[in-house]
């Protein structure tokens, strides 16, 4: 494996400096005979960490595989992703999480950390063998029934308590099932006009409030997936002020898009939780800026074309996001002056790595640290073209949209996975 000299990169957006990579680690002096990468004008960030990715393997390899999904991740600047458990079969036993983890190692595009299901079959009835998944080769620390809410309060309490034994965290998909029966889009002016069954904000907020109280009661930490409403932000802010161990993520699409795009009835905009009002978008941006929301997580949810080219109600929920996440955050947060590049690194690498207990990711780019990093051209503008995506699916909501910033190179433990914006 060659050594590298990265010349003139602006570390977290600061003044240009040289980075030296030897044997997969950052070092403090220039190695001899190294490859040189001219990073003039590029910003260096620690490799991005996604807390929320659907890689679809095993089960829906027509929509995505670990190979294609992690390549998309690398192209988006990620060096680690958490693979959600709603595969077929469900990742609710050690065997499945180990399979996904091994597929990640074999693909080699980025680290794959499987998320374990909280309950058997995501059915919300009985705890899965969380300890076995934690002790497996996959070393699972994040547990989630994502796609389903752990709705039973007693079961949620037990899960929150149980994972303390191995410093795990439950990542809750907050959605009251009764309040969202048949729900299709955010409940408000748009749903009233479009005649689509409403998905009220309270269905998310009530569960978040309950779980903050539960986590505080049993002294556990809890993480909230894809918070989408101004009310959720207020509750998380309140819980953090209390000193409770609560973290939250927001998706790029909830930072950029509001529910007025649903007027096209194009299911590419159908997602769970639904796109919300522009007031919610503003509140989410503010919360990510002030740290109430800890992390950006993609909720990359690839779907086969036939599951999206339908009438709205019949379509699957979800949108792809790995390759566009950094650009969307640049548009929503950097260009609006809400976050600088150091803030982006914090919300897209440092804090998600900490929540997932990944010690080799999200580290400052200093000598001795693993060389997981991404080089970004902040002045580039790219028009999103779904046909060029490395993902096996095409359901991006940004097709044809021009977005700022471009990932030029990604390094995973000193080895380039992406160079010149292409797979290395």
């Amino acid at each position, binding site marked *: 494996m060659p050594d590298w000299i990265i010349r003139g990169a602006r570390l977290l957006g600061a003044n240009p400096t040289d980075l030296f990579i030897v044997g997969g680690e950052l070092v403090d002096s220039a190695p001899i005979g190294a490859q040189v990468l001219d990073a003039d004008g590029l910003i260096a960030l620690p490799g991005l960490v996604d807390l929320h990715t659907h890689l679809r393997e095993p089960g829906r390899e027509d929509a995505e595989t670990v190979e294609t999904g992690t390549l998309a991740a690398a192209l988006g600047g990620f060096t680690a992703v958490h693979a959600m458990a709603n595969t077929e079969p469900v990742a609710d036993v050690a065997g499945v999480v180990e399979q996904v983890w091994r597929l990640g190692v074999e693909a080699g595009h980025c680290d794959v950390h499987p998320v374990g299901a909280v309950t058997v079959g995501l059915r919300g009835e009985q705890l899965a063998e969380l300890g076995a998944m934690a002790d497996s080769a996959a070393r699972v620390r994040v547990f989630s029934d994502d796609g389903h809410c752990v709705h039973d309060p007693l079961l949620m309490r037990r899960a929150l308590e149980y994972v303390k034994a191995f410093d795990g965290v439950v990542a809750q998909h907050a959605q009251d099932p009764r309040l969202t029966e048949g729900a*299709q889009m955010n*409940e*408000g*002016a*748009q*749903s*009233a*006009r*479009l*005649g*689509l*069954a*409403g998905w*009220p904000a309270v269905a998310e907020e009530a569960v978040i409030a309950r779980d903050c109280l539960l986590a505080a009661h049993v002294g556990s930490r809890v993480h909230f997936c894809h918070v989408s409403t101004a009310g959720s932000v207020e509750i998380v802010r309140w819980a953090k002020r209390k000193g409770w161990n609560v973290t939250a993520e927001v998706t790029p699409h909830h930072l950029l898009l509001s529910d007025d795009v649903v007027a*096209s*009835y*194009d299911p590419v905009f159908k997602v769970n939780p639904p796109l919300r009002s522009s007031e919610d978008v503003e509140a989410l941006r503010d919360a990510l800026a002030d740290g109430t929301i800890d992390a950006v997580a993609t909720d990359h949810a690839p779907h086969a074309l*036939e599951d999206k*080219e*339908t*009438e*709205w*109600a*019949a379509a699957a929920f979800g949108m792809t996001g790995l390759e566009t996440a950094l650009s969307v955050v640049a548009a929503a947060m950097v260009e609006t002056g809400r976050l600088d590049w150091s803030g982006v690194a914090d919300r897209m690498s440092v804090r998600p790595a900490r929540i997932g207990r990944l010690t080799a990711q999200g580290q400052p780019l200093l000598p001795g640290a693993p060389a997981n990093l991404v080089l970004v051209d902040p002045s580039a503008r790219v028009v999103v073209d779904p046909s060029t995506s490395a993902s096996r699916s095409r359901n991006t909501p940004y097709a044809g949209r021009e977005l700022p910033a471009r990932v030029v190179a990604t390094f995973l433990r000193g080895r380039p996975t992406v160079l010149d914006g292409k797979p290395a």
Partner: protein
Amino acid sequence: MTTPATTLPQHLLSAGDLSREGALLILDTAEELARVADRPIKKLPTLRGRTVVNLFFEDSTRTRTSFEVAAKRLSADVINFSAKGSSVSKGESLKDTALTLEAMGADAVVCRHGASGAPHRLANWIRGSVVNAGDGTHEHPTQALLDAYTMRNRLGRIEQLRVAIVGDVLHSRVARSNVLLLSTLGAEVTVVAPPTLLPVGVEHWPCAVSYDLDGVLPKSDVVMMLRVQRERMYGGFFPTTREYSRRYGLDARRMATLPDDAIVMHPGPMNRGVEIAAEVADSVRSTIVEQVANGVSVRMAVLYLLLGGAYPDEIARSAHDFAGASVA
């Protein structure tokens, strides 16, 4: 007379897509076409050689028949494509159905679908005009047009008419289309329902909202009763059908509180004894049978304008020519 400069959109997907001029053009054209229907030869040659597909994913004999009669009176070829018993029930997608119709050369597709927005999707996949004949809980624009036509016919105007739309507004495509169209045409609309059957966000609609039918009726020129679907009766939206009927049903006692000239409308099919009492449905105020007849004229006008692009004064001429040709 509406000027030929008035244009309609390519598709009729929402009553909200119609300008005031566009809506009036449809109503004026319908009036002209209704006159033709009184002649011995009811058929016009206007759409000869054009193909109209009735694409019905939901059963609706009355709406389908209405469109079919309308298209045939304009001499169009009509294909009835019912989802029941077709490839649709074998899992063919909406898109594949659209591509099939496109390949068959459909000039207009009249679409009824259980999912809100399905006609919008269809419009992306075919070149012909799409007419929304009712989509999920979204809209039913030709119903609103025939309702407006009926009001104008009976009461001589639409502007400043006080219209109460009563019942399951939440799930009603008839209510949505009527609120949009009638407000465009200058009526004062009030939707009346138990709060559980009003959508969150109704406050953004161009209408007033009331929970009190008895308070609204004396100030209404038109009262439009909406059908209560069976599944709502058991969906927990109201305690019992009897309580619904007591609070929101239109019976003879309530009808007596209406102003003298006020009319009672219902899009059908009715639940007699639930939202409307039999003696109300059959009273002289009721326009329910007229609505059905007017539906044909209005749908003729919609197909005529979307496909033919001609204007009311041309209809008379064309009818005259056609009648002459037939005699010869």
